[in-house]
């Protein structure tokens, strides 16, 4: 819509603001080690939420103790180590709920990314390689998609269907494919003009073969970066929708849902919403930093920003 200039690097970042690299980090050119240092804490958090609930060292996150409601975390008066981060309005252990809720949050982050990146990549490849009327049609669809913010899409579906995990994934797929398709399309258009593609065509390779075996591998870096950043976006969308009571519903637990449940007791028990929000922010920040580091890892040219 608002793109008239040719695909300069600045425009690429204009179209997908999320992949605009963190300037300071990129200019000095992060070494691949940076990727590792950011991936490690993320993997560590993922491991905790995956394994710890199964070990049975934490109290049952669904078990209510109505005589222990809204207990503060251990570092405040009245708090104790039996509930290190305090309890919610039904006396459920907050630490245990956060660890367990992380499972659904991570799951949605990953599944929400796959359902957005796979169709987005395929559609972008198709439009960028075929050009012509296919490209025109796809571009219009991408722009129409971008004209419908995710909350509006969610509202349109949920007003009819009610909210559920399935609807949430559909919303993530419907909103996530377009930005991805846009970038992949632009990159495909650049790759298809290169000599080796011309050579392959002259040698009689089929379009499908050229695209999947020769163009796609050249886009690995871009797609990995897009996918990484999409995990953060998916987690933020999940938490926003859950917060608006349009996403994860009790008794299921996600970080967004815990944050939402803390809103009504915000003045008595600030820790519920605060800790859930910190968890979301830390993970999304790590994911975004990782995306930046990967961008400079795969494309040293972009380090000049």
């Amino acid at each position: 819509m608002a793109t008239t200039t040719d695909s300069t690097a600045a425009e690429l970042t204009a179209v997908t603001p999320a992949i605009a690299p963190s300037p300071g980090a990129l200019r000095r050119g992060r070494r691949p080690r940076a990727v590792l240092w950011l991936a490690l804490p993320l993997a560590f958090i993922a491991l905790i939420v995956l394994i710890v609930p199964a070990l049975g060292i934490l109290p049952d996150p669904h078990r209510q103790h109505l005589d222990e409601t809204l207990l503060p975390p251990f570092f405040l008066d009245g708090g104790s180590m039996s509930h290190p981060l305090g309890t919610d309005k039904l006396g459920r252990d907050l630490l245990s709920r956060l660890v367990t809720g992380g499972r659904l949050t991570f799951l949605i982050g990953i599944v929400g990314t796959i359902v957005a990146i796979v169709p987005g990549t395929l559609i972008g490849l198709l439009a960028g390689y075929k050009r012509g009327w296919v490209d025109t049609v796809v571009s219009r669809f991408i722009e129409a998609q971008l004209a419908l913010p995710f909350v509006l899409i969610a509202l349109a579906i949920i007003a009819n269907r009610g909210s559920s995990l399935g609807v949430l994934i559909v919303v993530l797929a419907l909103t996530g494919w377009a930005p991805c398709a846009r970038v992949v399309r632009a990159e495909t258009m650049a790759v298809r003009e290169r000599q080796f593609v011309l050579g392959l065509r002259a040698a009689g390779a089929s379009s499908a073969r050229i695209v999947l075996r020769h163009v796609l591998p050249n886009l690995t870096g871009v797609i990995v970066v897009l996918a990484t950043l999409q995990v953060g976006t998916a987690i933020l969308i999940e938490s926003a929708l859950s917060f608006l009571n349009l996403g994860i519903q009790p008794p299921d637990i996600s970080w967004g849902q815990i944050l939402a449940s803390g809103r009504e007791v915000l003045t008595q028990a600030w820790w519920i919403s605060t800790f859930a929000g910190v968890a979301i922010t830390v993970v999304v920040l790590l994911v975004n930093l990782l995306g930046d580091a990967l961008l400079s890892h795969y494309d040293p040219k972009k380090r000049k920003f």
Partner: protein
Amino acid sequence: MNSNMALFGARKLGAALVTLLLALTAAFALGHLSGDPVYNILGPLAEREQITQMQQELGLDKPLVEQYTTYLGDTVRGELGDSLQYFRSNSELIRSRLPQSLQLLGVAMILAILIGVPLGTLAAVKEGTWWDRAASTVALLGQSVPVFWLGLMLILIFAVRLRLLPSGQSGGIDHLVLPAITLSLLPLAHIARLTRASMAEVLAEPYIDAARARGLSARRVVGWHALRNAALPVLTVTALQTGVLLSGAVAVEYVYSWPGLGTLALEAVQFRDFTLAQAVVIVGAVTFVLLNLLVDLLYVVVDPRLRT
């Protein structure tokens, strides 16, 4: 105004209309292909006659193609149907809430530009210094924090603890402060990052050296020669940010009980008032497309290359 400009404008208008049609179709499809809303509204215990009666009232018994053409016709004429929940016309409801939303969006966007552009410029000019690093950190944090959570935290600090500002509802200017700051953070972060990237690129251009060589002050070089050229991608992103802003606005309005379109849409969803929800979706999409068209036309003003 020459023919080139007219052609450019006409092409952009055409593209915007197609985009709008597709977005309206999507809104219709999302609402109608996801199951008959009547069953959801009346519940599983509804009588057969009740269901058919309601389907007739809402025109849901007609073939899908006919429903679609009626919907498009009504939308073009500005008829957005009646709310199932308030028994009033949707356009009337939306008109009563739209000013508050626009006020909030406008102030947030102005804040984002007024802070984001200088922040990005500063980072680009002082490349590599701690100014740069601080600005980048702020920008990256802004993209990672859930807006509604930030809203809750601001309420907790400024309304509950310090009692400096009201925590919600609309009213005087003081009611606008927290919601506008909350909503502005995400576009601010995007704008700052993009201004920095765009500015760094422009500052490396030979004409900047030329301007410096001619002895122009640093302020004039950066503020006039560089910023004007760095503005284009920033303008694009600012327009695209409106979509993100609309999404954020729903959550922010909810946090601060702000009586705007967002809270109206949420009430609609809560009561399965799908005609009202659809009307809000339409208004949101139209707003977004119009804004982007406006930016496309602004390009002609900002970029003289398009005029010749």
